[in-house]
């Protein structure tokens, strides 16, 4: 058993070689974090590990013991809420399957760089694939917050 700290709560889990994503979704039923590729290639499973975005599909659960994990469910207030509102206002949401991961990455970007350039947005968000092609709207949503901040 290892102790995981997720969204400020402590959980005792049996990692049994499982990935963090499997533990989050199947054991803790935190279903906002999505499994889309399982290959670290799409960012749908992005969560924060000690404040940095990581792909939960490529992390062994036991490797994050002692670290702080925040999922989309734990990102409700402050800047994340502003990001979510901007995403909705700009229609940076189509099917929505990638959106939690996009919100995680956008929130971290804006915490790090409050007024990012287009290039900084592209660099920070390039790991989050959106097959519907909401990218122009994602860029506008992030710029909208930056402009209003």
């Amino acid at each position: 058993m290892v102790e995981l700290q997720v969204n400020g709560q402590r959980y005792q889990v049996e990692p049994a070689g499982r990935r963090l994503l499997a533990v989050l979704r199947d054991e803790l039923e935190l279903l906002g974090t999505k499994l889309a590729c399982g290959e670290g290639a799409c960012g749908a499973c992005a969560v924060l590990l000690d404040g940095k975005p990581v792909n939960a599909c490529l992390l062994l659960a036991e490797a994050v013991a002692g670290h702080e994990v925040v999922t989309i469910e734990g990102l409700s207030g402050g800047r994340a809420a502003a990001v979510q509102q901007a995403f909705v206002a700009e229609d940076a949401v189509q099917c929505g399957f990638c959106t939690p991961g996009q919100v995680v990455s956008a929130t971290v970007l804006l915490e790090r760089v409050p007024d990012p350039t287009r290039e900084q947005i592209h660099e920070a968000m390039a790991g989050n694939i959106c097959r519907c092609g909401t990218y122009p709207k994602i860029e506008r949503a992030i710029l909208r917050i930056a402009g209003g901040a």
Partner: protein
Amino acid sequence: MTARFVRTQKEMEGRYEDVWALVDESDDVRTWAPDAELSLVGQPAPRFDGMVRATGRARYTVDVRLTGMLHAAVLRSPAAHGRVRVLDIEAALAAPGVRAVIGPESELSLTRSSPLLAAEPGYAGQPIAVVAADTLEAALEGVRALALDIEVLGHVVDAREAVNEHQFIGEPADDSRGDAEAALAASEVTVEVSISTPAQLQTPLEPHAAVASWDGDELIAWVSTQGMFAARDELAAAFGLRKDAVRVRTEFVGGGFGAKQGAGFEALAAAELARITGRPVRLVNDRHGEMLDGGRRFSTQQTYRLGATRDGTLTAIEAEAVLAMGQGGWAMPTLVPARTLYRCADVGALSFPARTNLRPVNAFRAPGVMEGTTVFEQAIDELAIALEMDPLELRRRNHADVDQASGLPYSSKQLLACYDRAAELAGWDRREELRTRTGDGLLRGMGCATQIWWGGGGPPSHATVRLDAEGNAYVVTGIQDIGTGTLTSAQIVAAEELGLPLARVRVVGGDTRHNVYGPVAGGSQTTPSVMPAVRSAAAKVRKTLLQLAGDVFEIAAEDLEMANGRIRSHDGAIDAHVTEVTEKLGNATIDGSGSRGPNPDGFVVHTFGCQIARVAVDPGLGEVRVERIVAVHDVGRIVNPLTASSQVEGGILQGMAFALTEELVVDPTTGVPVNGHLDDYKVPSIADVPEIVIDYAHVADQNLPNTGTKGLGEPPIVPTAAAIANAFAHATGRRAAALPLTRSQVLETLA
């Protein structure tokens, strides 16, 4: 309701059939006039379920968790063609946690025209067996315990080889008219173009998925599908059930792009295993399984020979397309652009649906027409070059005033206005200046392409509207919103007709239990099919409400109107909140139902458009960068410009990727795809996005009932790749023999 049946023509992605349509004679809702003053329709509105999606609270099929649920894993063929020699079902059943195993020899309770599981698979990735177990890990162990041994047989990758050996899916099609050969021989100017296009994968981020659960002889299935009613019907037929004994739930779908039609293998297999085990079963494709067996756009090899007079009048079109069908599917209308885009009497059109060892081809956003446009519109540009004529001018000169296949008029066509607007937005008149600036060492060019697609929708589509005592409306539709925002469009149309603010209108879809029918989210038909039904239902509720208001205020109902939640008399004497009337309802409700009327006789319904791309080519690295795309489309009345622009952007980006990076690559020696993962099949990222400029013809189609709207899901992807390829040719003076324009393809083309 006074009802009658009428015979009407129904179209889905270019396939027409005559159907009986139920017509409500009492429905007197007229199409909004072109200049109608609408308060909500045409105004941008954020989708009402956006926050549910953005906060991760949306529950997709892959998120369904049921008590006692089993997990299924699929054994897929490792060979492009083979025969199963050994499959140890007993060993798999004996593995820890395994509850059921089905294979090619298993006796199933479902019946189907083709086997669910293959003893002789015809493509890599084809399902051979499925294991259901307590956990996914146990199911995967069960798959390993099957210890598949397969005899590898011969395979065909090259579609041309299949044609030479007369290996077809169905029959080659000849859709010719006139005498193209003679016309070509008599033409003053001729060109010939041969280009191949790639197999593109839909790649929805939520893979194909289903969860099935039985309650006695009733089945409930959560299915990630674009067609929940088709899924219901398919499951009912397969298991011999009444349709109302099957409930399909499809509240959120993580993308489909054409790939998710009906129940699919996943729902059928999950329901079968749930029936065997008496427990709910979840079957979700892993990414590799999705890339191999989720679906694709067929690769094509197309050849066009065009003839024209010196003044640029098209006199002959000879078109030939070889379509790599895989193991089945329908030969999507690749030569429709050649047959209908421009005025021409003599057209040869031959298509060859070649049988190859890949998964059966399925729909991918504007299937066939997008591939056909990609090459045909390059041939048109080659003709413009041969004629030394402006490519847009050549297109204008050959504008088709009536449908070239049927001779019938269009219900509405604003293509010439689209050309003008696109040219203006793109700076087309300064196109040649692009080629002279070379400060950064890049070669720049600009190219255009024309779009044609259907998108008129049709019956049947139904909706119900219920207004309660608090003045709030509840709209039930048969929509499965796969990300297009059509549920929000239905909210806008209902609120417009009811005269209520958006916040007072709640819309649902995604559940067949209501038996309020909506069409499959395909063929760009949801908006033009469902919105008229929603409007008709809302109009009935408004009519009843105003009758009741007339009683309450002792005034004729005809003298009252609804707007923004208020009931007003034309003379201004009465101005009351809607609840002053509805509060008298108590627990009663005002109900209305509406249906989509038939399409107009004597017209063909199409959408049109023009896109112009500007590219920069690095001749040293072979890199093509799309800098800007202008898109102007004629899709009738726009309900929600915010979500409409999202459809245009999404279509353009998928079309751009088709032109530049996306291709399923198959190893010719094994017949097995080599890039069936998201880390080697390159879909666009945010860093690849060009500037996108969007406008519309802004002309409602007055011949369509009753909202004048057409579909927009597919039109934007149709011309993008052709416009990019034409811009590439303009920039470099060379035309690539194959898409995508990868670096190696570009370097080879420029060498």
